[in-house]
């Protein structure tokens, strides 16, 4: 049907097949990307998107299939070959070295040197400054990578790829950790890059973004390509249906909340960030049984710290937290769990999972001493654990060949589902959900949203933090807006987006006098 010749194609992948133990991640996949376009790759969690891109980048060797770059057949022995062909990739999970400087991270593999082999700091700095100026991506080359917020780390990843002179850019879920503003900034950059003659492959679960930025779309499902779409002629519904194989409810259906007694009382709580500066400056609010309190705010205004303090993984420097009438301020994570507080942390690979453990083992993390899973807190009931894990996998549609697969080998979204399943499965009194749907596909978002509402209706008190304002607005019964470590206002969920945006950036007048 198309009249493009092979030379117009920057990337042509034909019949790519890759099997992992128990699962065919790519099953005769064809992908054609035209030079100078933004090509979106979408599909459910575990559909095989990252695998396909890792093959294109030379990190994974396909079992069969061929790759043509700019019309020429190529063989990739490793990323080095891909780099020399002008391919660059920003990975779903960042490939950054936290203890290195931003400059060293960007230069790595193509470092400027003086004399025999001495790393040339000033040339490195200059190269980065040139790049960042050209593309409007401000970055301090001397900052320590680990100290940067995720938005800037993301930016460093892109600069890294540009520095290597990539003409074909693969971006695997680059917006997963970005706020809407940051996403808009990224899109400006991507459009500039296309103008400068680059070709971009863009992966995202946020269909609105896909429609906004891409020219064409390839849809994958369970390892196969199920559709090629032209962005102009399609809609969110069509993509979603292709991806999931059924119509997806794109908004949350819920009845009004019936709040009960107060379960969680946070009184004037303060805490420091990892860098030792105050991140919470006297936060006060109440959370009732059977309600969802959403926290809106620009990332880095204390939301993460608040969740951690309540979950018992960060020490508070002042104030009190009451669960019912028990003071749990000084409880550690385990005692909190026992008291009925469940926590979906935002950093799924760092704190949510033990990556080398199997799904079964991960599914009881934190509950291994409970009598359901052990005899007298001593010996694990393996059969019970396996039954439990199987039940969760089924219920939450975790895509995996078996419950013995290491969490590391799950796709990003399925890792997230394991955590959500575990935490919701514990029948908590209070559910702390930080970015619960980060990186999961729309089918799973719909499911997780429905489950959160179900938990609420069952009497659980839910505290929700999300970078997606839409998610906060559609799920919450009340919205607390955080700004600079304080709750500046508590709003109703039908508050206009503009007003929330204003409050989130320090403007506007509080409605309820900060609770």
């Amino acid at each position, binding site marked *: 049907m198309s009249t493009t010749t092979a030379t117009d194609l920057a990337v042509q992948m034909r019949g790519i097949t890759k099997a992992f133990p128990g699962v065919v991640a790519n099953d005769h996949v064809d992908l054609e990307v035209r030079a100078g376009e933004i090509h979106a790759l979408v599909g459910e969690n575990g559909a095989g998107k990252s695998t396909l891109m*890792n093959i294109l*980048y030379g*990190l*994974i*060797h396909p079992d069969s299939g061929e790759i043509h770059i700019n019309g020429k057949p190529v063989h990739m022995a*490793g*990323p*080095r070959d891909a*780099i020399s062909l002008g391919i660059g*990739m920003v*990975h779903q*999970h960042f*490939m*950054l*070295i*936290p*203890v*290195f400087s931003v400059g*060293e*991270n960007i*230069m*790595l*593999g*193509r*470092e400027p*040197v003086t004399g*025999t*082999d*001495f*790393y040339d700091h000033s040339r490195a700095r200059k190269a980065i400054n040139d790049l960042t100026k050209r593309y409007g991506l401000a970055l301090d080359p001397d900052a320590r990578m680990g100290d940067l917020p995720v938005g800037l780390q993301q930016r460093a990843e892109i600069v*890294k790829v540009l520095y*290597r002179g990539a003409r074909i850019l693969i971006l695997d879920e680059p917006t997963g950790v970005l706020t809407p503003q940051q996403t808009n900034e990224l899109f400006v950059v991507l459009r500039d890059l296309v103008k400068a003659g680059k070709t971009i492959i863009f992966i995202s679960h946020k269909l609105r973004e896909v429609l906004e930025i891409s020219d064409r779309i390839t849809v994958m499902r369970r390892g196969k390509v199920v559709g090629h779409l032209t962005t102009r002629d399609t809609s969110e519904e069509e993509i979603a249906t292709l991806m999931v194989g059924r119509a997806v409810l794109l908004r949350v259906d819920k009845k009004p909340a019936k709040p009960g007694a107060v379960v969680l009382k946070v009184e004037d709580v303060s805490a420091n960030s990892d860098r030792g500066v105050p991140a919470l400056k006297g936060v006060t609010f109440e959370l009732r049984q059977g309600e969802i309190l959403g926290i809106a705010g620009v990332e880095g205004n204390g939301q993460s710290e608040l969740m951690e303090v309540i979950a018992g993984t960060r020490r508070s420097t002042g104030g009190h937290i009451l669960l019912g009438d028990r003071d749990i301020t000084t409880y550690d994570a385990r005692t909190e769990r026992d008291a009925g507080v469940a926590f979906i942390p935002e950093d799924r690979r760092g704190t949510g999972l033990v990556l080398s453990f199997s799904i079964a083992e991960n599914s009881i993390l934190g509950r291994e001493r409970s009598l359901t899973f052990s005899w007298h807190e001593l010996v694990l009931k393996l059969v019970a654990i396996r039954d439990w894990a199987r039940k969760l996998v089924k219920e939450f549609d975790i895509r995996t060949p078996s419950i013995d697969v290491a969490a*590391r*080998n799950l796709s990003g979204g399925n890792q997230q589902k394991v955590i959500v399943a575990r935490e919701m499965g514990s029948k908590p009194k209070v559910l702390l959900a930080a970015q619960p749907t980060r990186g999961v596909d729309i089918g799973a978002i719909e499911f997780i949203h429905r489950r959160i509402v179900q938990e609420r209706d069952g009497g659980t008190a839910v505290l929700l933090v999300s970078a997606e304002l839409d998610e906060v607005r559609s799920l919450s019964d009340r919205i607390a807006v955080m700004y600079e470590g304080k709750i500046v206002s508590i709003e109703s969920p039908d508050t206009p987006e503009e007003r929330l945006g204003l409050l989130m950036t320090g403007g506007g007048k509080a409605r309820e006098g900060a609770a």
Partner: protein
Amino acid sequence: MSAITDILQLLVTANLWQVAMVSAVLLLLPALGGVISERSGVVNIAMEGMMLTGAFFAVWADLNWHSPWIAVLVAMIAGGLMALIHAVVSIRFRADQIVSGIAINIFAAGLTVYLVRTIYGLQDVGHVVPAEALPTWDVPLLSAIPFIGKVVFQQNVVVYIALIVLVLVEIVLFRTRLGLRIRAVGEHPQAADTAGLNVYVIRYGAVITSGLLSGLAGAFLAIGVSNTFVPNMTDGRGYIALAAMIFGKWTPRGAFVACIIFGLGEAIYANNSTIHVSQYLLSMLPYLITLVVLAGLVGRSTPPAADGIPYAAGSE
């Protein structure tokens, strides 16, 4: 407490420091090897075995060819080959690096005893004649400086070599492209791989370098200090070097400071006739220092993030 005043008196004599320097260098070379290996992400506790192998082959080569320099070369190759085994097992076959290290240490102990028996029979190996041992050399002019001259510039040539290697390793690791790459591979091999580096080549190189340096230390011990080979003559030095590396927070200069402290402990023990305290207590000194140090006197030290974790390309 007369023992303490005895020790303090000893500490101001250049003689003690001169001896301490030799002991320190015997630890420094394998410690630097450990730093390089672990900075690239391969845990290496096999310095003991590599050093012991080096010691034997130094003596063997020296008795055969009557040249300390050929002996040093042979010792380094022997240490390097032992390291190659560790590299293949832990990089290529991704086996547990501690287990591999222990196996090499045991293997080296057995191998050297076996070689002594088969080559030299049951009697001892025999002595290297002083003329064919590694020479001491007074650096002109500098050796005349009071105190420092005696401690630093009237030493065996290997001491000079070790000090040069120390400076080199420090510069290479933290100032050069190669060093950046070694550290990248040890911190986050996947990031290094995606940046186009060859993780395996870098790790092989680093582990083999640690073998070369340990082999050199073995040669120094055998044909610079003792002039003979005795089974198990390294006497745990490879392990103390490991402690020095950790004490020094995986930096060359930190390891050097640690080696000096351990070296002083050993020198004080060697001088026990002048100290009024049980020599058994004194003999524990270096190890006691090691334990106290490891128990956290130096504060928490974090190893390279991917230290000890085998890398398999293509898996997250």
